């Protein structure tokens, strides 16, 4: 036999990868893509393969990064850590990615050694996280669970920040309320510790109007029309016995693995399996089961047998519904065709069949529900996919507020406020940050400036239509103004509200452009009593962010930037 041997190629080693022009250029492209997506007026991206595959229009980091196939290891590190953050916290993906890009870019301009920058960045990060978690933090609001306003604002802020969902104001209000309701439905009634949250299942109903969306307690299982016609109304009032099968009841043979099975003529394996199924059916009948659910397929003959004995059968439930079904009914999913132990059965309160749009559903109403179904409609596939992801993000953000009952001010205000805090700290007491690391104050000044401007330009990325970005000198909040305003004019009239919507321009403030340098000042906190005051008239328009997600985003961004800055060599295996 002829074989050919090829000599192995030597590995390639690049030193100082960040200094390469190509790397900088691609990093710049990536940053451009991400920055242009950021915020409620962010631009959308069409993702497609240009050969007729489906087109996805999005501005969400989760979708973008999943589909971007980046080549350079540095970009891979960046995208991987952002994706990891998104998979844990859902929100603040773009925030993380852009901040990381900004940091790398700004730090590179300083000419400091990697060790110094990393050390200082870490100190600054620690300052930020401890500030945001401290009582003194001036850019967070406590969540009041007895009032829906703050929670609704949080959900609404998340929905408005994804323009590809194509929602109108009314639809945003409608979906926000649904999401909040879905969130409340999964909180268990008893307040035992620890609280175990239920699950909200998003059920697709594409093509209908968004305002047709609804939330129902319990589980909705899609079924065919023929099945729909067969579902009988419940006739008894006692709890209904349920069996849930995770194994296929279709009568085929489980995977035999490799090799061949030899059967002599006249033996019908199919009939043998069917006999076994019917035996199982007999047991179900004698156990007085009322409903049989199966993840996979039920053999038509078994279905016929069970229907004959007034047992409702629903098959092809799908793996996604198995866990919630087992939870709400209290069943043990049955994984074999052998005899079923009575302990595996569960119960439900009621069921009914329902029709939404063109689809038929089996609606299972459990005794104690911490599971709900969010029937989500949108006009077309692209917008639906985007909306689904957004709803999941919002539901996740709400869940995170239970752990840390605070929200951050959104709309860029937290970023500029944080930058103002850092500037002031460096100006007043640099020693408290420096500790004894052997870094000089000048170095700290440089890195702090890089860090602050990374935060500020992140806030500035919210502006996509050529407006100017400002910060006020009292609270350190973020403001925007039309580009090229007349020189002598009262800014109070030109500006309306700050990014998060807490302050309006009538409060005797002074402003400076974000890019210009200004004298450090003590950013004042919006005190709790102040928020109480502003609440009645303006909570409807507050832009809020999830604290937990944003904190993690900040951490991931700084740490990833540090990691990338620390890279000395890239070794590439060319084989």
């Amino acid at each position, binding site marked *: 036999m002829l074989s050919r041997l090829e000599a192995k190629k030597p590995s390639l080693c690049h030193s100082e990868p960040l200094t390469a022009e190509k790397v900088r250029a691609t990093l710049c492209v990536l940053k451009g893509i991400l920055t242009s997506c950021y915020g409620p007026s962010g631009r959308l991206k069409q993702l497609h393969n240009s050969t007729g595959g489906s087109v996805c229009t999005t501005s969400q980091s989760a979708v973008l990064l999943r589909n971007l196939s980046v080549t350079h290891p540095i970009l891979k590190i960046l995208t991987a850590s952002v994706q990891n953050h998104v998979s844990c916290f859902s929100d603040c993906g773009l925030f993380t990615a852009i901040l990381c890009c900004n940091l790398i870019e700004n730090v590179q301009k300083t000419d400091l050694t990697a060790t110094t920058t990393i050390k200082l960045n870490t100190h600054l990060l620690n300052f930020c996280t401890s500030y945001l978690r401290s009582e003194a933090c001036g850019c967070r609001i406590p969540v009041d669970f007895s009032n829906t306003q703050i929670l609704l604002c949080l959900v609404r802020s998340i929905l408005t920040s994804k323009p590809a969902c194509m929602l109108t*104001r009314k639809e945003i209000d409608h979906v926000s309320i649904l999401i909040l309701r879905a969130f409340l439905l999964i909180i268990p009634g008893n307040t035992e510790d620890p609280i175990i949250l239920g699950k909200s299942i998003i059920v697709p109903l594409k093509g209908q109007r968004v305002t047709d969306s609804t939330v129902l307690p319990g589980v909705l299982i899609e079924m065919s029309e023929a099945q729909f016609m067969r579902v009988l109304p419940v006739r008894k009032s006692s709890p209904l016995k349920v069996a849930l099968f995770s194994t296929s009841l279709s009568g085929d043979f489980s995977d035999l693995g490799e090799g061949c099975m030899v059967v002599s003529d006249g033996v019908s394996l199919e009939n043998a399996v069917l006999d076994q199924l019917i035996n199982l059916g007999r047991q179900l009948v004698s156990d007085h089961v009322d409903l049989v659910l199966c993840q996979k397929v039920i053999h038509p*003959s078994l279905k016929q047998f069970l229907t004959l004995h007034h047992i409702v059968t629903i098959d092809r439930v799908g793996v996604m519904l198995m866990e919630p079904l087992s939870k709400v009914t209290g069943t043990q999913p049955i994984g074999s065709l052998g005899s079923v132990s009575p302990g595996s059965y569960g119960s439900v309160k009621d069921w009914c069949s329902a029709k939404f749009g063109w689809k038929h559903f089996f609606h299972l109403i459990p005794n104690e529900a911490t599971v709900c179904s969010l029937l989500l409609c949108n006009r077309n596939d692209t917008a639906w996919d985007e909306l689904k992801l957004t709803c999941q993000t919002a539901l996740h953000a709400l869940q995170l507020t239970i752990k840390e009952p605070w929200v951050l001010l959104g709309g860029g205000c937290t970023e500029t406020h944080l930058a103002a805090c850092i500037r002031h700290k460096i100006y007043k007491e640099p020693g408290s940050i420096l500790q004894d690391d052997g870094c000089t104050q000048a170095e700290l000044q440089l890195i702090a400036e890089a860090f602050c401007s990374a935060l500020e330009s992140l806030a500035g990325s919210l502006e996509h239509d050529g407006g100017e970005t400002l910060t006020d000198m009292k609270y350190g909040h973020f403001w925007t103004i039309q580009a090229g305003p007349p020189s002598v004019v009262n800014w109070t009239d030109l500006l309306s509200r700050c990014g998060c919507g807490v302050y309006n321009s009538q409060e005797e403030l002074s402003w400076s452009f974000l890019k210009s340098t200004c004298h450090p000042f003590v950013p004042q906190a919006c005190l709790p009593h102040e928020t109480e005051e502003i609440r009645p008239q303006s909570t409807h328009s507050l832009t809020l962010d999830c604290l937990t997600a944003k904190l993690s985003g900040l951490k991931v961004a700084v740490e990833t930037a540090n990691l990338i800055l620390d890279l000395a060599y890239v070794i590439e295996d060319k084989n």
Partner: protein
Amino acid sequence: MVMACRVINKRRHMGLQQLSLLAETGRTFLGPVKSSKFITDEECHGNVLVSSTVRLLESLDTTSAVGQLLNEAVQAQNDTYRTGTTTLLFLAGAWSSAVEECLHLGVPIAIIVSVMSEGLNSCSEEVVSLQVPVHNIFDHMGSTKAISELKTVSVSLGPFLQDSSGASSVQEKHDLKDVAPRFTFYSLSGRPVKSSEFFKPDAKIEAGENTSQTLKSSLHTDTCFRKSVLVHSRHFNRTDNNQGIHKPDRFQELHGATTFQTYRCSDLAELAVGLSHGDHSSMKLVEEAVQLQYQNACMQHGNCTVPFVFDISRLITCSLPGLPETFSCVCPGYIVQVSIACAGLIKELENRPIRVVLIEGDLTESYRHLGFNKSTTIKTVLGSVKLQEDSSEELWANHIMQLLIQFNVNLILIKGNVSEHLTEKCVHSKRLVIGSVDGHVIQAFAEATGAVQVAYITQVNEDCVGNGISVAFWRNPLEVIDRNNRIAVLLKTEGINLITAVLTSPVSAQMQTKEDRFWTCAYRVYHALKEEKVFLGGSAVEFLCLSHLHILAEQPLQKGDHTCLGWLHHTSSWLASSLEIYRPTVLKYLASGWHKYLSALLYNTASYSSEFEASTFIQHHLHSAIGSGSPSSYILKEYSKLNSGIFNSSILNKLEQFPRVYDVVTPKIEAWRRALDLVLLVLQTDSEIITGLGHAQINSQKLEGFLFL
């Protein structure tokens, strides 16, 4: 794998341009007079005849990202409502060029998005005033008056009128013959039609003794002009044909507006003709189908105590190409084509109740239910050396035959495929096997006969068998035999909730169009009955939107009036404060979309020699409507004005029941929304990210403006 990214929003927005170009292709489908198109494949020399937006987009190569989004939007609209796709396509085009104009003027994108979307919302709220309730529509069903009236109407309109694409000379003759009485209808009005009726493209028609003459000549010029437009359709731009086509609609619209006194619709015939939009022959079938279903429901539920709901899933079509148009009809029961070989069998089965089995899957030996995975690693060995005489298929077929004989089944309806071998065997033993039956048909038979659907015939027991089905030829078999030697058979049973509409056409290329049009009509009626409301038709709603937007643009934005701000009122961005400057401009551009829509519509109905002329006409009315202070009452007033005009001529009194033009509500508003959503989605997109391309592919394409990651 390499990913490329292209910036599509430099100076001119490429996506918007593509969108308006693509939408341009559907322009001639707008309005009741549709011009068909030939789509020719240069490579394969294949031709397709299309006359609807959905079919057009199916045949076009829309591989560009924007093309696909457009296709997706149109498909979604079609899947959900089955109507409104042409409106969607046209408005998407009109609005994308309007948005582009806004971009040229330097309006920030966020403001365009916000103002346009709230502008459309405001329009949707405004047009509620033109809704007509559809109530108690079946109260008059008992009286045959309405029905007979409609019949005379449809007779006078002739069966071929909606066939704008039908170009056979025979048809033309028919058309002309049928046109004649209609001309006299026109002259009967005895006075010039008020040109102020923008809904009706009649400005040029000075009705009088020689209306027909005027019409003819004016149309002649139109069609001459149109010839140059319809370069791709060399067959279908005949003068005579066009003439024949547009008139019923005008007639329709003229009389449609006449009897508007109560603004409610409580008669099915009136509703049906109002929603027919010129396609009377299809609508006649739909109307009869609704009546049949209603009658059936009454019989089933006794005295109509249960409110009747039109179940469109129990309406099916049977297309018989090659038969004359007059054979089109609706029948209770299931009409299906079977091979001529079964003719003898059917004769034998006629006039006696037969028993049926309903199969959900295929009827073949190898069929297993969905989800059953056949193991490939099982081998069967023969225990003893005996020669197998029959194949396993033969054994299976024999087994099935035994079962059929045992249960005395003569009819098997199967959702899936059928083994040919078995079919032959069954024919020999006088059993009729029909495969590929629609699920709803099976369901209907199951309900009517008490049969239970099974996956395998081996599951059948006595309880699964349905009884009392009658089989008959649909018409004389010699009359209706088609080229493929298939004959139509009617299967029915007492009280079956199933109606078949038989669609026939001598031109087989038209079959698809005919079917599409039938369903469009059926779904219009379905939505109208479901929503219990319709819009005043004849472009009244669009005109109201146009004038409403103009009025909205003039109104100064009030402080604290958040409804106009859209999501912008959530944001504190400078955009919110500069909204006031741009708002009137954007609203006017949004209105320009309606304006284009109306002028294209008027132009398509062939009463204007140019779109410009049509546009001026609209402009004139726009001024009057805005001047009147309330456009909606202006529109209603114009309707009733014409009304009194008609009533003056006593001869037309008997046409009092003559229906007006209606439009469906939600599908229409949804089509607008989808069109605008699409445009705004494309507008907000600034780059295309192309995934999964090899280096070589991009290099070979030599595309500029790509960035790589």
